[in-house]
C-alpha cells in the first residue's frame, strides 16, 4: 500500500507538472513575456500575443482542467483507488 501510494502520487505530480508548464507558457509566456514578438503574427484582426492574453490562454486553461480530470480518472482506475 505504501509503495503503491507513493507511485500513484508521483504519477499525479508528473501530470500536474505537465499541465502547469503549459499553463505557464500560454499565460506568462505567450500572453506577457513574449507578447511583442508574437504580436508580429496576425490571427485575423488579432495580434497573436494580444489574442493569447485575452482569449487563447483562457481556452487553454479550460482544456487543461478537463485533460487533468480525464488523466486522473484513468490513473485512479490503474491503481484501483477510484471511489
Amino acid at each position, binding site marked *: 500500500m505504501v509503495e503503491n501510494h507513493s507511485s500513484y502520487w508521483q504519477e499525479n505530480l508528473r501530470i*500536474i507538472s505537465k499541465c502547469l508548464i503549459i499553463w505557464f507558457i500560454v499565460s*506568462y509566456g505567450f500572453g506577457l513575456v513574449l507578447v*511583442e514578438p508574437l504580436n508580429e503574427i496576425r490571427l485575423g*484582426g*488579432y495580434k497573436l500575443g*494580444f489574442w493569447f*492574453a485575452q482569449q487563447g490562454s483562457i481556452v487553454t486553461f479550460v482544456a487543461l482542467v478537463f485533460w487533468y480530470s480525464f488523466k486522473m480518472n484513468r490513473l485512479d482506475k490503474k491503481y484501483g483507488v*477510484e*471511489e
Partner: protein
Amino acid sequence: MDELKLYTYIAVFGSFGMYFAIAWWARAGSTKEFYVAGGGIGPLQNGMAIAADWMSAASFISMAGLIAFLGYGGSVFLMGWTGGYVLLAMLLAPYMRKHGKFTVPEFIGDRYYSKTARIVAVACLIIASLTYIIGQMKGVGVAFSRFLEVDYGLGLGIGMAVVWVYAVLGGMKGITYTQIAQYVVLIFAYTIPAIFISMQLTGNPIPQLGLGSTLADGSGVYLLDKLDLVVTELGFKEYTTGQLGNNANMIAYTLSLMIGTAGLPHVIMRFFTVASVKAARSSAGYALVFIALLYTVAPAVGAMARLNLMHTIEPAAGENLVYAERPQWFKDWEKTGLLKFEDKNGDGKIQYSADKVTNEMVKVDRDIMVLANPAIANLPNWVIALVAAGGLAAALSTAAGLLLAISSSVSHDLMKGVFTPDLSEKNELLASRIVMTLAILVSGYLGLNPPGFAAGTVALAFGLAASSIFPALMMGIFSRKISGPAAVWGMCSGIGITMLYVFMHKGIMFIPGTSFLGGLEPNWFFGISPNAFGAVGAVVNFAVAFAVCRVTGPAPIEIQKMVDNFRTPAGGVNVAQDH
C-alpha cells in the same frame, strides 16, 4: 411609467420571485445541508453554482469597463481570474474534498493539528471576505439607483432583504440552487447585448470572433486596428499593446489574482458540496467553462464599448458631437455623476482626449461601460432591463457565498470547533443563521457608509487570500512534513507583509496622509503596485513556513498518514462520516 422602467421592474422582481421560490423549496434542515448542501450536488450543477459564486459585480459590471480603458493591460484580470482555476483544480480541490470537512479553516486546523492555525485562518478568511462583500453591496445599490431610480440606501436594503431570505433560510443548499438560476440570468444578460453589438459592428454574431473581424461599414478595416487608430489619434495608449505599469507589475498582478482566486474560501467551500473526488475535479472543469463563456466575451464587450463611445463623441475625425445634441443615455449617466462634461473652450462641442488640459470629458467612470453599453448601441429596452437583472444576480450570488463563508467560519470553526465544543447541532444551525444575519447587517452598513478604502477593496481581498490561505493549503497537501507552527508563522508573515506594503503606499487603514512611502510608482518595489503585491506575500509565506519547519521539526507521523490518506481518492477513513 415608461416602457424601460416597466421591463426593468418585471426583470428584476421576476428574478427575485424565482430566487424566493427556489429558497423555499430548498430549505436546509441540518448543519450538513446548511454548510455543504447535503454533499450530493452534481458536478455540472456545482460548476454553474461556482461560476455564479465567483463572478461578482466586479466581473459583471467593472471588468469589461477596465478592459475598455486599459486595453491589453486589462489582460491581467482575464488571465488572473481564470488561471486560478487551473491551480484550484489540480493543487487544492480534489484533496480537500477527500478530507471531507465543512470549512476551509477546519481543514487547516486538522492538517496543522492546531487550534491557533484554525483561528488564524478564520481571521484571514473574515478579512478577505468582508472586504470583498462591501463591493457587492455597492453594486446592488448602484444597480437599483440607476435602473429603478430608487434611493441608493433603499436599493441596498432591498438587496440585503433578498439575500437574507434565501441565504439564511436555505444555507448552502438554498444558495446552490439560487446560484444556478443566477448564473443563467447573468450569462444571458451579459452575452445577449454583446451578440447584438458584435452584429452591428462586424456582422459576426459571435463576439469572440467579431473582435477579430473587419468592421461592417464596408471599409474592410479590422475592428482592433480601427480602435488602435482612433485612440492613438486622441493621445491615448495604443489599445492592443498598452501595458499596465511595467512587465514585472503585470506578471506579479496576474500571479496575485491567480493564487488569490485559488485561495478564496467561498469558492473552495463549493467543492465540499459534491459527492466524490472525481466530481470535485470535473466540477472545476465545468465551472471554468461557464466562467470562460463570460470572460472571453468581456474583451469584445470592452473593445466594442470603447469604439462606440469614441464614435459617439467624434463621429468622424474633427467633427465633434454638439453637447446640446447629446443622446439620452449621456444625460442619464450625467445625472448619476459618473459621466461629466466641462466645455473648456466654450465651443459647445465635446472634445475628448488624453491631454488633461484640453480634455472636456472630465469624468468617464469605467464602471458605467457595461451598464450603458446597450443604450449607447441603441439596443431594445428589454435588453437594458435584462442587464439590470444580470448585474443584480452577479452581486447577490457572490454576496450569498461570502456570507456563508463568514457565518460558517464563526459558528463551525470558532464556536463549535474552539470555544463551545458541546454546542448541539440544532444550536449550531441557529448560531450560523444568527451570525449570517449579523454579517448581512454589517456589510449593509459598510455598503451604505463605505469606508475610504472601498474602491480598491476587491483587488485587496485577492492579495490577502493569495498571501495567507493559498500557501497554507498548498503546503499542507504537497508537503507531508510541514508543521503547525510553520503554517501559523507563514500565514501571519504573508498577510502581514502584504498589508504592510499596502498601508505603506496607500495609508494606514487607507487614511490619506498616513502613507509614509507615498503612493507613487517610483517608490514601488520593482515597480509592483500594492494591488499586485499578494504574489510577493505568498512567496514570503512559503519561505517563512519552510524555515520555521526546519528549525522546529516536522509534523507528527499521524498527520503525515492523514496527508497520504487525502492524497488518494479511495481507501482509508472517509472523515465525512464523522459528522
